[in-house]
Every structure is written in C-alpha cells, then in structure tokens.
C-alpha cells in the first residue's frame, strides 16, 4: 500500500501554501536553457520534468547569499545594535534533489560546532524539504561515490517518486512531512523505485588518504592550472558554506552582513600584511579538495560533497571536483 499524489495536486498544494503565507521554493525555468531553484510565485512556476537538476542548490534558502547579522546606529559616542528577531516564515522546498537534501544534515555540523548559528538553525527548523527522487542521472553526477543514491532520503521530510503519467508516490519521513501532506494523497498499489545510480567513479577513502599525504605535490599544479579562481563552484555547491562578514558602512545601510565567500578567490586567505598562505590557484584548489574529502570528514565524519555535479556543469572551464578526484584515484 502506498500513498500517491498527482502533479496537479502538487501544484494546487504549492499554490495553497503560497496563499497561506508560506515561502515555497522549487525548480523553475529561468531561461530557455537554465533551471534554478527559486521562490515560486505560483504553483505553475514549479518545474518537475525535462531537466537533470537545477544549476543552483537549496542552501540559499537556509543560508542566504547575503544575511544581515545586525544593524548599528551611531550617534556621537554611542552605538546601538539593531537586531531582527522576527521569526522566519514557514518555508517549503519542493522537488529538491536527494543530493541537495542530503547536504543539510552535513551542514548542521559546522553551523552548530560549539557555537550555534541561529540564523541557519531557525531557517532549518522553519523549512520542510520535499525531495523528488531522480529519474535519471548524467555523466556529471557522482552521488554514489560519496555514499548516496538517486533515492536517498537523507535530509528530506518527504520524498516523491515519479510513477509516470503525472503521478508520484509520496513517502513522508518526518512529522514535518506528514503535517504538510496529511489527507492530500490517495492509496495505491503502485510504488516508486530508486533507479540505479551512476557507477562508482572513485573511492572517497583513497582520495582522503592521498590528499592528506600529498599536500606538496606537483599534482595540484598539473590539475588545477585551468582554474580561473571564480566562486562558481562554491556558490552552486549544496555543501560549500564558507562566508565573509562585510561592513560596508553608511553607504550600505549601516549593517554587518554575512555573505557567501569562496576559498578559490585569491584574497580569501590574504593577510593585511600582504602575506598569503595560498598565493597560487593550485594551492586554493588543493584546499577545496582537502576540505571536502579530508578535513570535514576528520572533524565531523561526513564528506562535504553530495556528488550533485553542479561544480562541473557550471565551471566556466569544465573543472569541478569530479575530474580532480577521479584523477587522484586513477593517477
């Protein structure tokens, strides 16, 4: 016995949630050749078929690209800090990919390591993630190499499996998921199946061993030379979370803002004295791989990568994580 739901019901539900004051995000067609997760204005905006995965990730709904930490008012010698204590509106992310949802329990670790980032935690608590299991994978996907698969339930409150003919099997995993869909489904005999994922492309443990032992190695120079040092990979990655805190002063509204940052930028680790521990791009690429496959696993027991392939698809020079780690494994 399974619960099934139709596409039209899903869209109607999305419209209901939007009308009820919830923030609803899901894949939407932005350009003829570009699908992004966006805040939806209507149930019709929701795109459920015809693409591998959005070019961005769902992290922006829990960890926005710019988040005001507090404002400040300066009057002579007195400073007043102004905080925003308004509760986050309830949020639904619909049709997230398993590789997006799985990043959330991974990110929970760093945002709660001794100090609790309540900006992230509050949004996380206010968000229900409805995942859509994958019906296909492309050559950039590698979720199976990092311990996931196209039907993984990690990080999801509910998961949908496409059955064809606009029908989906719905499995509610948490109370949040059940609260959203209670009474909206029909009983059925049909069940969805997790498709076979991409074949395993590398051994993550072997990658970890290599990068830990080969900090100084011409490998990095050989395989990172094409990197142009933009932030595309980091910003489209579901798991990357490095950030900056900027204080642009009165011209920017007197606030301190947390913004996305990337270890690939040349000034990421630059000291005011002029010294830079990672002065060349190969050193910065090395940090990326080290952080994802060695450092985060050592600290928190999780690989900081869900194999979504966004980095490779979006990289202006086609680099991404996959090509580097497969080279490590086979080189």
């Amino acid at each position, binding site marked *: 016995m399974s619960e099934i739901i139709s596409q039209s019901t899903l869209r109607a539900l999305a419209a209901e949630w939007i009308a009820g004051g919830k923030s609803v995000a899901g894949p939407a067609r932005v350009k003829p050749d570009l699908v992004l997760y966006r805040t939806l204005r209507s149930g019709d905006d929701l795109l459920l078929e015809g693409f591998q995965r959005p070019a961005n990730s769902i992290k922006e709904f829990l960890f926005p690209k710019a988040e005001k930490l507090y404002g400040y008012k300066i009057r002579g010698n007195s*400073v007043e800090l102004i905080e925003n204590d308004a509760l986050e509106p309830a949020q639904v992310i619909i049709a997230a990919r398993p590789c997006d949802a799985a990043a959330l329990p991974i990110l929970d670790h760093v945002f709660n390591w001794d100090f609790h980032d309540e900006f992230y935690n509050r949004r996380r608590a206010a968000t229900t993630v409805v995942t859509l299991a994958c019906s296909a994978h492309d050559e950039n996907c590698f979720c199976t190499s990092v311990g996931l698969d196209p039907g993984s339930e990690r990080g999801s409150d509910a998961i949908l499996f496409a059955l064809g003919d606009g029908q989906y099997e719905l499995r509610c995993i948490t109370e949040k998921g059940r609260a959203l869909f209670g009474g909206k489904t029909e009983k059925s005999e049909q069940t969805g199946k997790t498709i076979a994922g991409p074949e395993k492309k590398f051994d993550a443990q072997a990658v970890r061993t290599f990068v830990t032992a080969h900090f100084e190695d011409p490998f990095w120079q050989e395989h990172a030379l094409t990197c142009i040092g933009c932030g595309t990979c980091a910003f489209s990655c579901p798991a990357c979370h490095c950030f900056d805190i900027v204080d642009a002063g009165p011209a920017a509204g007197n606030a301190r803002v947390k913004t996305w940052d990337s270890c690939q930028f040349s000034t990421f680790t630059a*000291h005011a004295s002029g010294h830079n521990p990672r002065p060349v791009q190969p050193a910065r690429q090395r940090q990326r791989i080290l952080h994802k496959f060695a*450092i985060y696993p050592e600290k928190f027991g999780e690989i900081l990568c869900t194999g979504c392939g966004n980095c490779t698809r979006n990289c202006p020079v086609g680099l991404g994580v996959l090509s580097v780690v497969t080279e490590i494994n086979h080189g």
Partner: protein
Amino acid sequence: MDNVYKPDLMEVTRVRQETPDVKAVSVRFLDSERASNFSFRVGQFGIFSAFGYGESTFNICSSSNWKDHIEFCFRKVGRVTEAFWKIEEKDVVGFRGPYGNGYPMEAWKGRDLIFLGGGIAMPPIRCAVWYALENRADYGEITVVYGARTVADLVFLDELDEWSKAERVRIIRCVDPGGETPDWKGEIGFVPHVFERAQVAAKNPVVLVIGPPIMIKNTLPILDKMGVKPASVYTSIENRMKCGIGKCGRCNVGPIYICKEGPVLTMEQLQGLPADY
C-alpha cells in the same frame, strides 16, 4: 535570538601610541553584567570591530587577572586598523570573544619560561609575562628576548623595564643590525642569534616563540641544541580570520581551525601540519 555574531559594546578607556604605527587600546564592557561575568585565558583572542569599517582579530594582550578592562594592540595596516588609529577615549568599539585555546598556564606551572618575540609579536607575549609575574610563585626563571627591526619599532618598553626589576627575571632587548640608535644600550642582532648568545641556562623550560616565520625557523635549531623538545615549544599562529568560531572556513591549517583549536600550538603539532599559514 542568541546571535553568536553580535559583538559586545566596549568603551575605550585608554589609547597609547607605542610606535609610529602601533597603538595599544584599553576597553571596558559597557554592560556591567557582562563585565562581571567575563573572563578569559591569556593567549586567547578577540574580534574587535570599528562600526562602519569592519572587524579585525587581535590577541587580548592584557593579563587575565585584570578585571576592569581588556587591551588589544595593533599595527595600522589596513581599513579597520586605520579606523582604530583614529579612536579616542569614550569611543565605542565592538568585541566578540574570547575565542581560541589560550596558553596552558596551568600546565606550565613549575617550569622555567622563555619568551622569544619579534616586533608586533610582543603583545601576545606580554599578557603571558604579566600573568606569570602575577602568579610568581607558580613559575621558575623567566627570560624574555624581544627584538624589532629598529628601536622605534619596540613596544611596551616601559613594561619591559618593570619586568626586569622582578625576581628571577632576565630581559634582553635587541634590534636588527643597523636598527640601533647612538644611545641604544641593548643587544644588536636578530632574536635567534641574540638568544643563542645569551646562553640561557634553563632546566626543562617552556618556550613561547612568536614572530615572523623566518625568526621561528632560525630559533628552532637553537632550542634543539639546548635539548628543548618540540612539545615544549609553543607559538601562536596568526591566520586571517573572520568569524572566529569555526564556521567561515578561512583560517584552517590542514585540519586545525586556528580560531578553535589554536591559535596556540606546540611545535610538535605544527610540524605535523601542512605549510598552510
């Protein structure tokens, strides 16, 4: 909401200019409850901010025994420190902290202490020296070798004078060759060489060495000759920081987040880490 990024508001109580580009600032909490609850360990750091300009990381260079204020010392090198350069008494700055692991002063009890510092590295040494002097009976012989490029670059000279009057304390000041003034009475030479010449006779000392990488690199062989093990040699690593609480991903040296598991590391630890600082 418990906002871990929100700073405490601090009032500036004193500004002292130490060199043409270095100032030391004393601040106190505006919130008296926070002031009475606050404590820190020497070697920890804070993220101080100039509202409108940004945040910057400095060691808390005052002794943890001083309860009414904390101090930081900075060189004017960038946007935020230029803003700090202009502050005066009664101005308000921000403070987040204390962060980091601090010096294991408890574990150092009973040992001779050797402090080796260059230039702007004196402030993170200063707090430990004051602490040791204030708990004099807990520590053995104290030796400080402190040098800078020129006489004008030396900081806290008046305090070095005070320290040299304390019991079982030896203070050696030096400047780089060519940095001396005609009336300079201290040593001339780089800190590692001056330290070697000083022939410090310490039994099983703890060494805190802070300074530019080249200075540390040249000091290690001398310590090795003295029989000091890397596990007894400490340093404070400075890496660029932002959040100070292990989240922004910027300050790591290999798997060590300097803001959380540092900045105080032993040479033994450092030698096991990649050259990422």
